[in-house]
């Protein structure tokens, strides 16, 4: 079986398992497992976002937690004002997920546009560090800004609503997250197959040649970076609703690290890489976290082994090297 077919089979298996396990848990009344699956789906959405910048565009953003946090705070602040009946900047709050998602994506996209336009003037280690610096600014801003909880964070007392579904029920919330995950995966696949994706990958492989055939590296990369930030911001809004809590920790640099880890564990630039990576990370935390309080030591060892010896991540290990990595 060639590696492309193997990868598609593995993708179908992952998509099926991520649906079947919580379906079983729903029938067996195991809400904890449904919530875990929801967390995997939402982390995978954030990972798909980063995968556009990192996997397709080769932009090693060490600050994507910024967009996760922006999305989270949009959800938290909207719910806070809807709950208290107050307004912010002349806008009233809302407890509807759809407008919250739109706002989270718009604001994340705007900030990603500013950060990207400034950061893409640099490359290599400087790009890594400047994206980290912008995320740290967001982290310290939320930490010391007292209006929305500061370092204590901001609770969402009642989970935001989605038309036609009851978001208080774990299974229905999972359906929302799973649906959004499939949609962003579809977007990623379309993007990769489109002229835009081809241009982005060409720039990653050789910016000078890409420029020579008339592709502007800066413009294409910036658009990819903005899209990437928007999808991660959407995941942030959903994450806040899942945990019903936002805090500066969502913007911490370790969160940016975890997002990269998710992509690497799964497979960089692979369609289902973030899904596999998120499942491994959450599974690892739950399984080893139950066995030993020092599970992070083992996570570190596994991560080290993957980086040193299995560079394609899980999907690379099973399906072989990427066709045009």
């Amino acid at each position, binding site marked *: 079986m060639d590696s492309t077919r193997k990868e598609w089979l593995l993708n179908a298996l992952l998509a099926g398992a991520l649906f079947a396990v919580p379906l079983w848990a729903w029938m067996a009344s195991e809400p904890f497992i449904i919530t875990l699956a929801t967390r995997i789906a939402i982390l995978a959405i954030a990972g798909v976002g980063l995968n556009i910048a990192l996997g397709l565009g080769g932009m090693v953003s060490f600050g994507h937690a910024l967009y996760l946090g922006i999305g989270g705070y949009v959800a938290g602040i909207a719910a806070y004002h809807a709950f208290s009946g107050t307004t912010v900047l002349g806008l009233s709050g809302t407890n509807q997920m759809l407008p919250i998602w739109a706002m989270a994506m718009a604001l994340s996209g705007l900030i990603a546009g500013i950060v990207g336009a400034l*950061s893409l003037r640099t490359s290599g280690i*400087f790009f890594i560090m400047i994206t980290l610096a912008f995320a*740290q600014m967001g982290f310290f801003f939320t930490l*010391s800004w007292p209006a929305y909880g500061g370092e204590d964070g901001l609770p969402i007392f009642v989970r935001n609503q989605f038309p036609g579904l009851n978001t208080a029920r774990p299974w229905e919330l999972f359906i929302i997250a799973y649906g959004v995950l499939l949609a962003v995966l579809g977007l990623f696949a379309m993007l990769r197959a489109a002229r835009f994706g081809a241009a982005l990958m060409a720039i990653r492989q050789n910016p000078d040649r890409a420029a020579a055939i008339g592709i502007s590296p800066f413009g294409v990369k910036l658009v990819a970076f903005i899209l990437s930030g928007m999808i991660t911001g959407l995941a942030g809004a959903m994450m806040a609703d899942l945990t019903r809590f936002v805090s500066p920790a969502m913007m911490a640099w370790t969160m940016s690290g975890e997002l990269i880890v998710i992509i690497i564990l799964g497979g960089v630039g692979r369609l289902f890489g973030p899904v596999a990576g998120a499942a491994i990370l959450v599974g690892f935390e739950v399984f080893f976290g139950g066995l030993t309080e020092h599970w992070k030591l083992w996570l570190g060892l596994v*991560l*080290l082994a993957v980086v040193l010896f299995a560079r394609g991540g899980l999907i690379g290990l099973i399906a072989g090297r990427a066709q045009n990595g």
Partner: protein
Amino acid sequence: MTLALVLEQLLNGVQFGLMLFLMSAGLTLVFGVMGLINLAHGSLYMIGAFLCAAVAGMTGNFWLGLMAGIAAAAAAGALIEIVVIRRLYTRDHLDQVLATFALILILSEGVRMIFGPFPLYLNVPDVLRGTVRLGIVDYSLYRLALIGFGLAVAVGLWALIAKTRLGIQIRAGESDREMIAALGVNIRALYTIVFALGAALAGLAGALVGAIQSVQVGMGEPVLILAFVVIVIGGIGSIKGAMVGALLVGVIDTMGRFLLPRLFATFMDTSQAMGVGAALASMLIYLLMALVLIFRPKGLFPAHG
């Protein structure tokens, strides 16, 4: 707000800057010579602090603890260079970031397993207790000693790099590693030595700062990020840049936290001014770094011209 208070904060900024320099010097050397981003540098700082606190606690002697902290950090540095870091020199930055991120997880949990989850406390040595009169301010003797330590190490490091054979090899390694290997220098051993030297400096900083903060797991990461800000501002690979960057970051951060809330209080309600001032002050150095990268993308003192 008196002049004495401003002067005291300025000295605190210089002291903080010099401790950042100890961290940044190793980081910038390792990047300059080996081209490696080492996120685990903060873990070496933590190891220095823990060993210093543990040995000083057992023997009652701060200086023994300090020696132990430096030695442990250098040994840990040499060990991880040989076991892990060595395989990363030819890899891209993404792999280096991830592998050293993994090392942070391993080293932090390792220290937690050995020393337990509670912070350790390290006392200032008796001879350095109390304050000293500097013109118009009474300044902490220990902090003044840290300034002295920092300056002495900076001079020593400059002498090492500018005047000794090892320094010549390090500089040669920065400009052309194939050539110096061809000239018969054992490049593998040189890399291990440079890495251990950087680790020892990080361990020294951790042990020294441990006496004015609590010694706990995770103490290295905030300093690590500041050290990255320092070397990016200063120019990666440049010791001089690390010194200038460290002093800039130390003074701007300390003075920003001190002055900005007071500045806003002149035209805002006090409690609001505290919040806004503190929020802006904590973002100041990242703003500085972003500005430097936008206008001088290779930092203030680019190492390779």
